[in-house]
């Protein structure tokens, strides 16, 4: 198992480097002249030259890449061109909100998906099952941003129970929580559709296995068998899917922040696009991509922990 762990870790680090290379290449090589992209076509020659100096654009490309990576590893992501402050500061300021949203979104997703998926499997071929299947099919087709708009129209415009968007800051914790309710629900509803389906099929697979029959034969109630025997075993393949879902989570968080005007990293990215702030976009994209890669890596490790059969194998 140690060998497997080592290989996987090396693979992880390598992937991160390749990803960073791709990001760097796209942001620096494709535009031809980043300075021109940032300042636009009307910029004067002097302004362009000054910017090129500032961003060390005259150095050879490999050197710039290595500089960037080296600085990034020490926490220095450069200066945002449009905000005129270090990128790290901007990120630190908005990170808590994004993390709160992503975390609660993922939590709610998992709870919903597991509950619905297991119930559907337990009610196989009966109304509960078809209902969940139908809902999940719908959930997959539903755009998150449209669902958000519908939720806002119902809960904010019509009923006025919750705010339609924006974030009031952390000074009033209850108001802050209220502002995050609809975004979290919107995020979770769409994501749980896929996960519920996977949970259901995984649970159905497990339910057919012999040890479930043993558990029934030993007098355990259907409930106990379902939640204590089926679910833990069904989780193993689900964990992989959860890992893959991180990519969707990242996308979803960015979209939801924009729908609800939440001042997190997702909105920051869009402001940076509007401002053609390449260094900022570069840093943020790298950050998000790194999160996705890291999440997948952690999921792989988690797999080893959960399934005792793997410990003895590789």
């Amino acid at each position, binding site marked *: 198992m140690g060998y497997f762990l080592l290989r996987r870790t090396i693979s992880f680090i390598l992937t991160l480097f390749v*990803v960073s290379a791709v990001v760097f290449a796209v942001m620096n090589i494709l535009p031809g002249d980043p300075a021109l992209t940032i300042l636009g076509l009307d910029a004067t020659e002097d302004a362009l030259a000054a910017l090129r100096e500032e961003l060390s654009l005259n150095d050879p490309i490999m050197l710039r890449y290595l500089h960037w990576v080296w600085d990034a590893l020490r926490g220095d992501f450069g200066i945002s061109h449009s905000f005129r402050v270090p990128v790290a500061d901007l990120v630190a300021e908005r990170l808590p909100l994004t993390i709160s949203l992503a975390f609660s979104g993922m939590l709610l997703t998992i709870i919903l998906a597991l509950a619905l998926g297991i119930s559907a499997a337990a009610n196989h071929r009966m109304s509960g099952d078809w209902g969940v299947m139908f809902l999940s099919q719908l959930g997959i087709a539903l755009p998150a941003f449209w669902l958000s*708009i519908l939720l806002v129209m119902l809960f904010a415009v019509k009923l006025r129970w919750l705010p339609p968007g924006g974030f009031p800051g952390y000074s009033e914790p209850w108001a802050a929580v209220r502002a995050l309710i609809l975004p979290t629900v919107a995020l979770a509803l769409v994501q749980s559709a896929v996960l519920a389906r996977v949970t259901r099929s995984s649970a159905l697979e497990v339910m057919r296995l012999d040890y479930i029959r043993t558990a029934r034969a030993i007098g355990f109630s259907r409930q106990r068998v379902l939640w204590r025997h089926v679910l833990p075993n069904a989780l193993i393949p689900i964990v992989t899917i959860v890992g893959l879902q991180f990519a969707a989570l990242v996308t979803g968080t*960015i979209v939801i922040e924009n729908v609800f005007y939440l001042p997190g990293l997702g909105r920051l990215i869009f402001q940076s696009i509007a401002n053609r702030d390449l260094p900022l976009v570069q840093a943020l994209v790298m950050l998000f*991509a790194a999160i996705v890669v890291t999440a*997948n890596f952690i999921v792989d490790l988690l797999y080893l922990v959960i399934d005792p059969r793997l410990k003895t194998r590789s």
Partner: protein
Amino acid sequence: MKRLPVNFLIGTAFVGLVVGVAALSLIWTPHDHTLLNIRSKFAPASPEHWLGTDQLGRDVFSQLMTAARNSVVVALTAVFIGGGIGVSLGLLAAAIGGLVEDFVMRLADISFAFPTLLFAIMLAAVFGPSLTVAVVAIAFINIPVFARVARASANQIWTREYVYAARAAGMGRFAITRDHVLPNIAAPVIVQATIEFAIAILAEAALSYLGLGAQPPAPSWGRMLSEAQTLMYLAPQLAIYPGLCIVLAVLGFSLLGDGLRDITDPRLARER
């Protein structure tokens, strides 16, 4: 006809509707979707304007029709390009095997670290948002998906008896791939393609909503929704129609894909 699964039939119906309307919009729409008529803005549904008008007096129905065209074109183009590259890579990997296979698949996997949105953001920051950006971003994520499907299916074909026979007879790997492997992986690839169409439409809508896809005046469902969001208090109905269209299109392709899968792989159909 009775033997065909329900989801296949419903899927085909929805897809037919959307694609048909998109094609129709090329030659006819009830009104010119760009025609402004501020005086009759926010008009309710009427025989004249089947779904009413928007904030600039434009006919909503015509806009939806033209936007359908946009979604369909982006989805088809992106999936074909991404799928074409992906399938080629997958076939290459399966045909050559060994280190080349590992390397190619690893390369394809890098794309998994970049969700479509993230890639689109990068491209939009560099080139400015446009339809092309959306197409490229969506195509990009399709490459590893198709590479995986193609490689897995191709590897199975390579172990078949008739392929051994062909190799023994001196047939080259390229010829075998073209004549034996490709026809036999068509089914899973097509199934995957329909599902990717669904995903592509959803992705395109999200990108347009965020302003990263088709730019005005080209209409798109996503952007119609983003405009409608600011008008929620005045005209809630404008936020409903484009969304329904998106759901219809995505659901259609998604059900169609499921149905095709049930048809071509009956083993899986039994326990869905």
